[in-house]
């Protein structure tokens, strides 16, 4: 592991990282043992870098040997190795055998393709790792450069601009009138003789005539074709007025038979 530590220091930019901060809990053992690597590809990349050549010209055979050697040492130290490191080791051993043995055209993909693909993967991971380091080393807002500490803030106050047209207004008023006015109009215009009017009329007529008079003769004369409801109303209010006059002792009422003519006479 010393080798590993030394290599990490060499890379420098790891200071920005927390190597095991987010290790998945379910395979925590792996990360405790292989401190600083995130999987076999990561370990391979570190080993490849130790060849100190461009990743494009790296010797895959050397890399395989280094990886297998590392796994051997880890086993000798009885370090617990996660399965995917062992799977990678088995695969690399297979790749090595393909590369060393005489070529068998039956085996597809061939060893060169496998090696090249591994190389491409390492290049990509290496490229992203370098890009990440360069990105993290930039002048970062909040670390190297700072925004204004206490901005006043700008705000937009929403102000509602109410709109309505004169027509809306007048129409609304018309609608209100339409709702409320009928009650008023009906009372005023209905063809009725009020109790007050009937009382006034009966009092006046009784003061003139002293004999018994049929109530119907005392009613206001109605024009031919006039509203029959006005006649009914006149009869009703005259009857009520007659009762009122009798109650006040100003008139007498008489009826010979049920539903017969109702007569009244003034009391002096």
């Amino acid at each position: 592991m010393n080798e590993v530590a030394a290599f990490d220091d060499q890379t420098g930019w790891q200071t920005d990282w927390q190597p095991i901060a987010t290790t998945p809990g379910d395979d925590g053992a792996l990360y405790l043992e292989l401190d600083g690597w995130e999987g076999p590809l990561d370990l391979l990349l570190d080993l490849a870098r130790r060849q100190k050549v461009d990743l494009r010209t790296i010797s895959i055979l050397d890399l395989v040997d280094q990886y297998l050697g590392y796994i051997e040492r880890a086993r000798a130290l009885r370090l617990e190795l996660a399965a995917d490191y062992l799977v990678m080791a088995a695969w690399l051993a297979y790749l090595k055998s393909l590369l060393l043995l005489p070529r068998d055209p039956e085996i597809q993909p061939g060893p060169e393709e496998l090696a090249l693909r591994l190389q491409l993967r390492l290049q990509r991971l290496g490229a992203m790792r370098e890009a990440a380091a360069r990105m993290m080393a930039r002048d970062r807002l909040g670390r190297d450069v700072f925004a204004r500490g206490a901005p006043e803030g700008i705000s937009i106050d929403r102000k509602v601009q109410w709109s309505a047209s004169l027509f809306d207004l007048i129409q609304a008023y018309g609608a209100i009138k339409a709702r409320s006015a009928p009650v008023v109009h009906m009372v005023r215009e209905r063809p009725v003789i009020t109790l007050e009017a009937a009382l006034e009329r009966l009092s006046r007529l009784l003061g003139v005539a002293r004999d018994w008079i049929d109530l119907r003769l005392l009613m206001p004369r109605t024009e031919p074709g006039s509203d029959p409801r006005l006649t009914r109303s006149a009869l009703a209010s005259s009857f009520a007025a007659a009762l009122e006059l009798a109650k006040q002792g100003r008139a007498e009422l008489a009826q010979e038979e049920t539903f017969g003519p109702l007569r009244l006479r003034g009391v002096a």
Partner: protein
Amino acid sequence: MIAGDDDLLRAVEATLFAAETPLSAEEIARHLGGAPVAAALEALVAHYAGRGVELVSRGGRWHFQTAPDLAHLLRREREEPRRLSRAAIEALAIIAYHEPVSRAEIEAIRGVQTARGTLDVLMEAGWVRVAGRRESPGRPTIYATTPAFLAHFGLETRRDLPGIDELRAAGLLDPIDDAYAALTGEGAD
């Protein structure tokens, strides 16, 4: 650490810009390793004078602030047109035709309760104002229209509002006749 006057000026400028609270000259100096900053502060005040941002000292502490004459730009009102609700326009019509009028009177004429917010909206719109209290039991608040109301609706005076006869002539009271016919039934011809 700081090479020349110019660098000091820049450092003071950046320090004040990034500071979360106003800083005294001593605090700035301490922050910058003890360099005297009075001259730099003076130079910065002069540099920012008349710009959109200025450097000011309040109670011995320095901070940048936006120029006071631009305050109106930083709190901006955006107008959102919105149509009055049916209830609001009815209340407004009643106030306009009957003013001054109390809420109870508005409700009596409309025949429905008027939500508290309705009159608020009309007052917020600037079309209705409180016109005092009526000298009657409960001393209810009474409302009237404003000059802004007349202006918005293009009226010289309230007398320009069409009268009942005009409303009827315009067919706006048609529903009344319908309602009357319905109530009087066979009596109507």
